[in-house]
């Protein structure tokens, strides 16, 4: 996957930040100004103005070709792996409450290690089972944090693992 140049990255950053600043001005118009509490819009608008000036300077610098150089592409760097990890992680957030912590984490650990290139299956499976199990015991039992429960936790509890699940 091709890397963005620093110049393009700076221009994209400017394109993201300008609407954020404009939104600050838009929303701050709607705020009430209570008497003797200082003006609530001064700091937000001040920061947004300062930020606008900074991003326009960044844009100027990028357009003039004075953008800082991007770090050299490291050997073995793989952006596809990052995208894979990000998709897996956002997917995890989406399903963890539905499926439950144990099942989702088991699958997540297995797929994540595969994305990172691990292919030693016995180790992989052991790792994928042990991590959610230890995390579950540590958080639920020792730290009293009720992790999201699903059918796996419920069925394990019904089959004699009530102490843990």
């Amino acid at each position, binding site marked *: 996957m091709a890397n963005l140049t620093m110049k393009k990255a700076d221009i994209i950053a400017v394109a993201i930040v300008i609407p954020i600043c404009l939104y600050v001005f838009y*929303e701050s118009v709607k705020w009430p100004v209570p008497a*003797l509490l200082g003006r609530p819009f001064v700091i937000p608008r001040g920061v947004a103005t*300062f930020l606008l000036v*900074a991003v326009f300077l960044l844009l100027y610098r990028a357009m003039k070709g004075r953008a*800082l150089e991007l770090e050299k592409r490291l050997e073995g760097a793989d952006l596809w792996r990052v995208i894979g990890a990000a998709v897996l992680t*956002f997917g995890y957030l989406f399903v963890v409450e539905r499926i439950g912590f144990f099942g989702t984490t088991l699958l997540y650990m297995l797929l994540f290690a595969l994305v990172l290139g691990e292919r030693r299956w016995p180790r992989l499976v052991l790792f994928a089972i042990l991590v959610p199990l230890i995390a579950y015991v540590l958080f639920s039992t020792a*730290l009293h944090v009720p992790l999201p429960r699903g059918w796996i936790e419920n069925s394990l509890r019904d089959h004699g693992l009530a102490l843990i699940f």
Partner: protein
Amino acid sequence: MVDLNLLLHGFATVLSGYNIVALVLGSFFGIIIGAIPGLTATMGIALLVPFTFGMNPITGIVMLLGIYTGAIYGGGIASILIKTPGTPAAAATVFDGYPLAQKGMAGKAIGMATVASGIGGTFTALCLTFFAPILAKFALRFSAPEYFALAVFGLSVTVTLTGKSPLKGIISGCLGLLIAMVGLDPMGGFPRFTFGTTQLTGGFSFVPMLIGLFALSEGFRQVEVILTAPKVSAVLTNIIPTLRELRECTKTFVRSCIIGLIVGVTPAIGAETACFIGYSEAKRTSKHPELFGTGILEGVAAPQCAENASTGGDVLPMMTLGLPGDAATAVLMGALTIHNLQPGPLLFRDHLDLVHQMFAGMIVANLVYVILGLTFARLFAKVINIDRRFLVPLIFIACMVGSYAIGNDIFDMVTCVFFGFIGYIMIRYDYPVSPMVLAQILGVMMESNFRRSMAMSQDHLSILVTRPIAVTILILAAFTTITGIRRQRKALRQQAAMEAAASSGGAQG
């Protein structure tokens, strides 16, 4: 002044029961985090903060202090053994540490690094113990305008001294300020930037955001480049340094302790800077500067002592003024707030016993990692080769579950992942993450104190420039900003000149 009775009581508390166990475990974990290249002290603290949530405040705090000091020291182990700093703070240890290892003196180098770190760390912890109450007493005189000025100073130093470009530091800091404004208005109580969602009414949860920006973002970096550390081949023998070797380094210890303390107290710079200054000063003042870089113990002692001497200096403004010295202390500050402790002068007024326990914890933490470092040096050397294909998913899951554990809320997990990804992109494109986090702490301080000042003066800005302490701090802030920007412009001009020279050379060729 420090209350010696409370301090002795603090030692008794820290050395008793679960507290000392937590401190030793924290220190052990910290050294491991420090020894693994790519993992930082900030990341270690961020990862462990959720585990301390259910603990007694002092148990949790000493555990985090153990991680902090242990990780700063642990970075030197990888520097010596594989020529790769475990943490950025140990970069200068490579210069003489690795040549010593090549000469077959890896054990000696690690021993000296451990003792030097302990001396620097203990010195700075003692300074913290004696100076913090004085500074806090002075800060009790501060009112809203002074706190506003202090926040402006902290912000200006942070954005201009962090990262390669002050401009990108400013952008990162301003975005942090805007993120800090999400939620209810601090004085009016009306919602701001919540997009109508109730989950954002209280703003973004600070600790999940910290975990995301400092730990998960590094996790994404590790996914991008799976580091395979060179195998540690050195055999560690004669680890404990002799009295003669320590005596030869006495001047180096004194110099590095002072350098570390001064660098630590300066906001936004910490151990990373202290180690280089410590090393270069030791070389400059040495009778044999030509030996530096060839593998001498002084070259290991100077940076290790300076980097650990910066820890107390970093903690000092955080505890007394609520102004974090660097990213790691920003995370420590976040940890204190989840235990309902607000760093600042009021901490010294309302929780004096706990403050003294923290001082004692800081001193003991520096002794604990020395004992652990000298005892388990061989074990810590093995940790360097841990398989990243298993470590990285572990970091991810620890970040997410840790964030969830703070409020049992899936939204905290989402916050952590969202900011983790943002942090990764920022690091990748040279936007420093620390200003964004520090700005969130200082932003709240700045805005609420500005509003209070305006309320005090009936909306007259003159209150900010008519009070001597406030105006002095504001002048300092302006001076620091201008100096920082000029320094950066000079660096850019030099870079442009070098590029021009290189291209003209290429054209001629």
